[in-house]
């Protein structure tokens, strides 16, 4: 036992080895169902492959960087569009989620009659399967008889071409729908963060003469800043690869206006059977995600909880 500190690794190993037993199932799952398939995807991106290769070309024919070359030259402008759209989609969504989520959370964080009822009801969109609700939104966003335009008509706002219009029309529709899908989650998480702020901080500030706004900006915001940052990061990463909202409503259109990586991947893989190209887009997407996620986790203090 003596001088064991000199070998912390072996020492920890001796005490902590049961951890590996607990992790074993997870490790097996990761290896077989995540790491191996991800490696396969990398491999596919270097092949000429699909369920239906051109007759005469054996499956898995190795073609080196041919697919990357294709994406980087012939399809370069599309690739650029995908990158920009994915970033815009994730970033704009997150900004809206945070604003709406924080606002509602701040309102719910007061002593209010019936706030648990509000909270339960407000969480419904999040609890309903997105697959179903998005299909419904598709109809609600219809230009001519969609109920959204009908509602706008009540306020004498001319109808909007949600799915076939210009940049702000189409992105606006998607962001509106995505807000509906996600704001409850952000609201609840921010509400919880706010509830963890000791009440006496507010009371102290109140006695000290701070107005409601001053309290919000000088106590609430800084206090839950790291939670908001972390949730925003996670949400950004999730939204970047969130497939259904765009695929089911605009399928990336009009043109490639709303095309993002995952939608493209799905279209290449399942609509056109271009598995190799799909794999190549996937790899690029994955690399972008890692380039954002790893530094954000490593160099900010956003995810301290994970390493505690």
């Amino acid at each position, binding site marked *: 036992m003596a001088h064991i500190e000199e070998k912390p690794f072996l020492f*920890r*190993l001796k005490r*902590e080895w049961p*951890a*590996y037993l607990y*992790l074993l*199932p*997870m490790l097996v*799952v990761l290896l077989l*169902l*995540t*790491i191996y*398939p991800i490696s*396969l*995807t990398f491999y*596919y991106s270097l092949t000429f492959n699909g369920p239906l290769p051109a007759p005469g070309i054996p499956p898995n024919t190795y073609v080196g960087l041919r697919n990357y070359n294709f994406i980087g030259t012939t399809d370069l402008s599309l690739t650029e569009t995908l990158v920009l759209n994915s970033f815009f989609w994730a970033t704009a969504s997150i900004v809206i989620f945070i604003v709406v989520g924080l*606002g*509602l959370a701040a*309102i719910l964080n*007061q002593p*209010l009659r019936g706030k648990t009822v509000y909270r339960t*009801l407000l*969480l*419904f*969109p*999040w609890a*309903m*399967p*997105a*697959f*179903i*609700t998005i*299909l*419904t*939104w598709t109809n609600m966003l219809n230009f001519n*008889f969609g109920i959204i335009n*009908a509602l706008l008509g009540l306020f004498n706002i001319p109808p909007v071409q949600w799915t076939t219009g210009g940049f702000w029309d189409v992105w606006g529709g998607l962001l509106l729908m995505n807000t509906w899908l*996600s704001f409850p*989650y952000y609201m609840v*998480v921010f509400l*919880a*963060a706010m509830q963890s702020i000791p009440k006496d901080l507010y009371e102290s500030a109140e006695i000290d003469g701070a107005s409601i706004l001053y309290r919000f900006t000088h106590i609430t915001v800084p206090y839950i800043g790291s*939670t908001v940052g972390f949730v925003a990061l*996670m*949400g950004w*990463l999730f939204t970047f690869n969130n*497939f259904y909202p765009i695929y089911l409503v605009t399928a990336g259109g009009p043109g490639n206006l709303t095309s993002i990586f*995952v939608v493209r*991947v799905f279209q290449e*893989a*399942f609509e056109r059977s271009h*598995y190799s190209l*799909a794999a190549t887009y996937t790899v690029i997407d994955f690399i972008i*995600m*890692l380039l954002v*996620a*790893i530094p954000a986790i490593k160099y900010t203090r956003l995810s301290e*909880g*994970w*390493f505690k």
Partner: protein
Amino acid sequence: MKLPSFFGSMKKRLKGRIVSRILSHFALIVATLFALFPIYFIFWTSILKIQLAAITLSSLIPNLALITLYNYNYVLSDPTFFTIYLKNSLIFGLSAAGVGLVLALFTGYALSRFTFPGRKPFIYFIIALMQFPGTMLVIPYFFMFKELNLINTYLGLIIPYSAGSIVFTGILVKNYIDSIPEDLEEAALVDGETRTGAFTKVIIPLIKPILGLGILLAFIGPYTDFILARAFITGNSLQTLALRLYSVSSISSSGGAAIDYGVFSAFSFLMGIPILIIYLIFQKYIIGGLTLGGVKG
């Protein structure tokens, strides 16, 4: 100095509060209407006689004269709704949730309570893996499972479905265990329990609240999955609600027959019911669990 009456003295301060409360309620009611409207829309159109394109704002106002149960009758009169679609979706959803949760429990515990060598890199690693777009996993899965003869079998879907939620739920569980004071386990150790005993007798009973959220998330994925199901299910008996919904909502092979929006809504609504039940049962826990920082957007 004249003393103000009791009510007089309260009024001014109460007035400010009442105004701010009214504003708060107003904002919340607007948000709630926004949140519930599409759900109401699904429900109402599922029992509405009027065709989708003819729906106007006024036909959205509840009106007995406009109601028909035709769509529900249409969906439910097909016994395969229960014997095949619902049954399979529940089998996939529940078994994936069950298996996934058990694995997540072990993972979360190990990540939370042990400081084994390699813990930090491991966490980085699984965070990195989480970033891989799941859509693309279908293709390699397909080739792997084909080799194992698992295509079009229950097992062949339950395995990837369970795996799908394990990383996320594992982290959720870890965060939750982090919030349980460690001295509870230490007390159990001193009281004569092994580490495993402390885990099963102290941690597992305490972790129940997180299971609500875990179950919901692990259930919704497989229950509504379309992509993997479409690739893996090639037979009749394994068909799921999501596949059926898609065929109800999309055009037929002849290239154009209209979808019956009423049938689609009725089907959607019926499909949503199990999830609403889970949500309402575990509502308290789900909200509690969410607060520990999940990532479902």
